[in-house]
């Protein structure tokens, strides 16, 4: 079947099977490989993208279901050379090591900060409970989300 997907501000027409998952369309057909697949049971959150601004696991919906929505992937978070505050904070706080979970973590964190602009530690942990990191022990990830919140508050223009 032929579907249209609006990703990172541009519309793409792709041919796919009915059963094609959104993450497969993003990675394999549109070549946006920053969105990762870390499991097959919707547990790890590596595939998290934004659908109309909300974080969703792109392994858990069909590509066809995303028609008509505005999709943002990790590749769409920075504005040119200027990183999104969450991207900047993850690096500054050393909230990533191998980096494989990082795109999903960043997408989940950005949505978390949209809902909770000044989150408590517990809100951050709860908000990231659907994202698994094997490297960092999460300590610096929580710190990164707090730092990003401050960056956005101090310079709202930073908000992508």
């Amino acid at each position, binding site marked *: 079947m032929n579907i249209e997907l609006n990703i990172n501000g541009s519309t793409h027409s792709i041919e796919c099977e009915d059963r094609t998952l959104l993450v497969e369309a993003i990675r394999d057909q549109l070549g946006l490989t920053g969105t990762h697949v870390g499991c097959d049971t919707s547990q790890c959150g590596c595939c998290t993208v934004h659908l109309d601004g909300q974080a969703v696991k792109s392994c858990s919906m069909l590509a066809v279901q995303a028609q008509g929505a505005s999709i943002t992937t990790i590749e769409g978070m920075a504005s040119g050379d200027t990183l999104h505050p969450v991207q900047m904070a*993850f690096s500054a706080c050393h909230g990533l090591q191998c980096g494989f979970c990082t795109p999903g973590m960043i997408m989940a964190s950005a949505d978390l900060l949209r809902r909770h602009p000044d989150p408590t530690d517990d809100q951050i942990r709860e908000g990231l409970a659907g994202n698994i990191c094997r490297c*960092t*022990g999460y300590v610096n990830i929580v710190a990164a989300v707090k730092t990003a919140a401050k960056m956005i508050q101090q310079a709202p223009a930073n908000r992508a």
Partner: protein
Amino acid sequence: MNAATPALSRVEDRRLVTGQGRYTSDWNLPGQLYAHMVRSDRAHAVIRSIDTSGARAAEGCVAVLTADDVKAAGFTELPTGAPVKATDGSMQVKCPMPVLATDRVRFVGQPIAMVIATSARAAQDAAEQIMVDYDDLPAVVNMEAAVKPGAPTLHDVSPTNLSAVAESGDEAAVKAAFARAKYTTTLSVHSQRLTGAPMEPRASLASFDAASGLYTVYTPTQGMLGMRGSLSQVTGVPQDRINVIAQDVGGSFGLRGGTFSEQVLLMLAARTLGKPVKWTSTRSELFASEWHGRALTLTGHLAMDADFNILAMRWDDQADLGAYTCYFQAFIGTRNLAVTMGGVYKAPALYCRQELIYTNTVPVSAYRGAGRPDIAYAIERLIDEAAAQHGIDRIELRRRNFIPNSAFPYTTANGTVYDGGDFEGTMDKALAMADFAGFAARKAEAAQRGRIRGLGFGCYLEASGAGGAPKDVVSARFGEAGVVQVFGVTGSSGQGHETSFAKIVADGLGIETRQVRYRASDPTQELVGNGTGGSRSLYGAGSACKMLVARIIEVARAHAASMLDATPESLEFRDGAFHAGARSIALLDIAGKLAVTGTSHPLDCEGEATSGMTFPNGCHVAEVEIDPNTGVTEVIAYNAIDDLGVVISPQLVQGQVHGGVLQGAGQVFGEHIIYDNETGQLLTGSFMDYPMPRAGWINNIRNDYNPVPTTLNALGAKGVGESGCSGSMPALVNAMSDALRGRGVPAMDMPFTPARVWAALANAAKS
């Protein structure tokens, strides 16, 4: 950018936070085909036949590979690593795993066939058409049952399922010590089977260029040489005909050291089909087929005199090998346990007996520490058990028995030489950091709220790796203007090599870190060195980087002298430039002036270092609180003092500590690979039934250092990769035991899941 914008931390970060990293499954080649594996769904069975006709007829299917194709290609079995010498002088009975099962399968998940098709979905659909006719055999999935008389035998060459019985130390001396001991304690602990679960599922993409005879294999590695060597060993293809490419690797934890079945099958498929072939695993098949970790039972015996001085330790260990011999494996249950079996304590007599046992499970190999955290854990539990049993304060018992600072270099009773440490000072620092003095009051306060508090120590010591290669070599290339390119073998799987090694070279040369670019395992560089592993990359390749700095300055000095019209020995090198009085020239300007077209530059050179095993150590203190109504545990505080020698990149080292601590916590509180005893089926096959540590498991890890630099390498560093696990497993479990002991709960094994803790409390209350 504004004042509130912090700086990026690591060189590799910009690409990783923007989705521009390139992990293996991100690579694609024109015209590529896709592979899917067919795996055994039986724990133990004879294969009567494999019918591939349905698959071959399926839409999009291009080929099916079975054991016959592997045999026709002349491949060997998968690599097994160095053999262990058994106590009776014989060598370990090795049972290597066939690339694809021939006449028998021995664990659920064992590869049987590879199906290749025009799309990943077509390959998966075709794979479902493969019919395997089995005759089931009885299976045995745990060590205790496997060594009982009459147990099902996995391999005819190993009729008792014992691959080897090995030993270390002096059994007679230990026996004599026990005979005169005033106090003895015995404790058996099990370090349960885990899966490594790096977040990047294993993937590979292989291509073959018929004109040059060159294979290119994209695959996650810990360093290209180990992977290339094992690919060559299995396929018989010379190493210089195999390019291995790994840019970004999404975690390893011991799993990326050598080939599995899939990589070599892809090489075969790429050559015979004339097209690149790609395989990306599902997480579920990794649970059932990627080497597992831990799976050790350690029984410790402690002998003490009337003053609680340790006289001897004896260990009787069992290591579950799984169904086949694989790389690293035999070392874990033998050498890696025995080398530090006395821990931080003076033990005049040491002995360890080890049994390596086959079971119908996934083969066991290295997992973060590969035996080191297990023995550190077992020792510290034994010490706490002895203190509780004999009524001596656990801190005092440790104080009496620490190896004193004056004793270094200290040779253990089984011949390991510890380079240095300050074990009592480290513990005292940890006690202060954890406010141990205030613990009794905190415990009483918790009790008023109906909660059970416990505090535990892990005074660990572990051996970081000497490495298998004779030395580590790094090279500098000056071809690109304004940049020093540094090449080495060791490959990052998250450690931040591009940052750490660049920093060592940049600091040494007095230039900016961004002016140095580290690249691992470049196919154009023929270097000697070790992969990442055994906590040794930083001090191994890092020491070579330090030597490289000296070499670069030496090579550049002569050129600087002629450019400055001065004698070489009159020049002073500082801040990235050679100085002759008021005149100076920057190193990178020299490189620019000397730039030539062609492959080599006059300043190109190599640095090398040989770095021996050293001994990171520390004291971790955990404080936990259990809700007896639910069995749920909260880690209230976690304080770690580590002696990692000289710390080069503090933020990266702290990240390793955090990650290691939580990986240990994963084992302590949840992770557990479970097989059904009757059927041998894997019961924990996904992240839905295998609890990975999540945000919130430990919230407040505080760490600091009590560094005693080592003299065994050029940097004075001891390594950090595995220390977090080695500290957190004993600290957390001793804290749990401290809490539960007060409620009459006998010693129990990990994992401390709410259900198990609640049941243990309920059982204790009944009795």
